[in-house]
């Protein structure tokens, strides 16, 4: 390997000794394209989030134009964050990690031959299809063709394209596991197999029953809540956790010493992930047992989270390694975010608390921490760790990486704390029927202002990351003059 100016410490024996360079080469182009597109959508989503938060302070901002109304921009921002950034980053990280962990290049024996090239072309085409679906779906919402189902606003054809492209990409990761050259499966590999199997099932079911052939609306509430919980806890979080399980032990020069706990945590996460979505519907128009299930799932979700944290945070580690390594810092912060989100989720699931804070910024804070914290932070870690291997050199700018890290944490922390506080105030005021609704709106004003500032910080962080990867890839193109982007 070329000399590392970035002080990453990972002895080569910590990774697969089996021709890791050929593995990297076999997935290089697809993963880079996935990551690059993901970051691009992250920047756009962050920009839309800023505009949306300004609209809560000054409703007249960009007002009067139906295309730019809150009701159109907010779902666009959310869906871009979920499908444009998070899912694509998860695909990229998942493929790279699976290939490395399985010790098998994509395409197997044909990796460097025609078969491998065909496979890479297929995956890249599927990626193009994915991004087309995201782009056109977003534009459809913009133009007034949203389906009106939360988190599933893309029209029928866009969501079908999304599902198809996922199948074309994800199947290879699962097959890699089946044909791997290593014997015992690692924890990270279970999570990846599970994630790649679940997304099609979850996305397909939800779209079929809510968008493509909607069932009677009396049944749609629980299904939509199940979708929200499953998307986060059964597709995106497992890939983030796989990144943590695979990379943290190696980066920190340690090893997992509680595999049985990891097993327990894995199966409990599977079990509770879908039910966890029901916290969106506590007290809603569903039979009482579903409300109670939501309460119980929200609280019990702490169990897998604690198991995972004990596992990964309880490893013996060399602190010096953490301080120098951007990927491990992101991965650790992601785990802390997961713990916080579990605690907030447990508290917010309690019936009295839910009665006060549901529908306020409190629950929105939880969602933001899920997406931007528990899921995105480990994915950033995987991104920062994978690219130098894929490009075969130290490509990240330390200055930009460091600034991205700090700004992301500050912005996210500020956003979550403000939304929690604001939501709490709003919720308590809403619970008092003598306080008029418009009064509550004006109480929230200072919180919305500060939330806007937090979103701006996150936008700057995203821009820094975009600049960082552009420089990294452009540098590669200029240096190598071989296969460029």
């Amino acid at each position, binding site marked *: 390997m070329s000399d590392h100016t970035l002080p990453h410490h990972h002895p080569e024996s910590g990774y697969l000794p089996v021709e890791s360079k050929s593995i990297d080469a076999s997935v290089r182009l697809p993963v880079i394209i996935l990551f690059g597109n993901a970051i691009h959508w992250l920047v756009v989503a962050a920009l839309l989030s800023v505009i949306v938060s300004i*609209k*809560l302070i000054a*409703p007249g901002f960009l*007002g*009067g*134009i*139906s295309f730019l*109304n*809150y*009701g*159109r921009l907010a*779902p666009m921002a959310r869906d871009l964050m979920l499908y444009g950034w998070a899912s694509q980053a998860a695909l990229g990280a998942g493929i790279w990690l699976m290939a490395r962990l399985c010790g098998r290049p994509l395409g197997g024996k044909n990796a460097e031959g025609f078969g491998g090239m065909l496979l890479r072309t297929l995956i890249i085409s599927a990626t193009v299809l994915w991004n087309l679906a995201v782009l056109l779906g977003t534009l459809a919402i913009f133009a*007034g063709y949203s389906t*009106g189902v*939360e988190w599933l606003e893309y029209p029928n054809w866009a969501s079908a394209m999304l599902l198809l492209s996922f199948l074309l990409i994800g199947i290879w990761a699962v097959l890699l596991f089946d044909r791997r050259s290593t014997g*015992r*499966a690692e924890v990270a590999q*279970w999570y990846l*197999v599970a994630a790649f*199997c*679940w997304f099609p099932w979850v996305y397909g*079911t939800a779209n079929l*029953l809510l968008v493509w052939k*909607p*069932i*009677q*609306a*009396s*049944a*749609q*509430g*629980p299904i*939509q809540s199940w979708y929200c919980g*499953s998307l986060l806890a059964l597709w995106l979080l497992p890939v983030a956790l796989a990144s943590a399980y695979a990379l943290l032990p190696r980066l920190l020069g340690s090893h997992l010493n509680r595999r049985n706990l990891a*097993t327990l945590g894995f199966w409990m996460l*599977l*079990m509770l992930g*879908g*039910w966890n*979505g029901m916290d969106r*519907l506590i*007290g*809603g*128009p*569903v*039979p*009482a047992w*579903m*409300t109670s299930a939501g309460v119980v799932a929200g609280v019990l979700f702490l169990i897998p989270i604690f198991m995972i944290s004990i596992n990964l945070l309880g490893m013996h580690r060399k602190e010096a390694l953490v301080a120098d390594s951007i990927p491990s810092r992101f991965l650790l912060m992601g785990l802390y975010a997961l713990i916080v989100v579990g605690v907030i989720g447990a508290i917010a699931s309690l019936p009295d608390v*839910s*009665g*006060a804070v*549901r*529908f306020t910024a409190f629950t*929105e804070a939880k969602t933001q921490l899920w997406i931007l914290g528990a899921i995105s932070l480990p994915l950033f870690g995987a991104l920062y760790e994978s690219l130098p291997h894929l490009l075969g050199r130290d490509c990240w700018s330390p200055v930009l990486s460091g600034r991205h890290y700090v700004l992301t944490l500050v912005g996210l922390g500020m956003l979550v704390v403000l939304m929690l506080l604001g939501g709490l105030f709003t919720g308590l005021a809403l619970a*008092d*029927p003598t306080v008029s*609704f*418009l009064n509550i*709106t004006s109480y929230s004003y200072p919180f919305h202002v500060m939330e806007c500032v937090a979103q701006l910080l996150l936008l700057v962080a995203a821009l820094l990351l975009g600049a960082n990867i552009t420089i990294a890839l452009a540098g590669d193109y200029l240096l190598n003059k071989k296969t460029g982007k």
Partner: protein
Amino acid sequence: MHRLPTLLSGIFLVFLTSWLGLVAYPALQLGRLTPVADTDNGGSLPPTYGGQAIAGQRIYATEGCISCHSQQVRQTSITTSDIDRGWGVRPSVARDYLRDSTAFLGSRRLGQDLSNVGVRRPDAKWHFIHLYHPAAVCEGSLMPCFSDLFLVRKIQGQRSDDALNLTGADAPKEGYEVIPTADAKNLVAYLLSLRHDYPLPEAPVKKNGAAK
């Protein structure tokens, strides 16, 4: 856990638990709820929507009203504040959404809950002005102006019956009037049809004010 088939079966079976409880059960049970007879007025409950209201649902979806408004009055065992606030006389139940094409339950209340807005604000003219310029009737409202749902045109002959009564800065120029488009009329028809105040077997309407 090391062979793909074993892992896959385990994943499949465990995943099935939430799928059965939150997808299959609702689809098979809640999804097969039927209307009940309305013994007081004839017809059935929930009441059917008119054609304009059905078209208005599409507008509600595409304008993204669900981003700010919810449509559910919560059960009193969780909180009574929805009912205390006058947003409904009883909690909403699954059967209430029978006639909808999409259940706009919502998850955020930047604006009021709308499940009973047809009872609370039965005046179409108020809704038109509110959609055109919310701050005119609700000071400090965060709601955007849906001015694209309206047409500002020169008064031809006589002022149209549909024209909005706007005053002050909202009023159009001299000789011009603001009239709602078909989309606006459909949306308002839908809003006026939103009510969950009829009794159902699983959701009786309690007459409050019983002597203590």
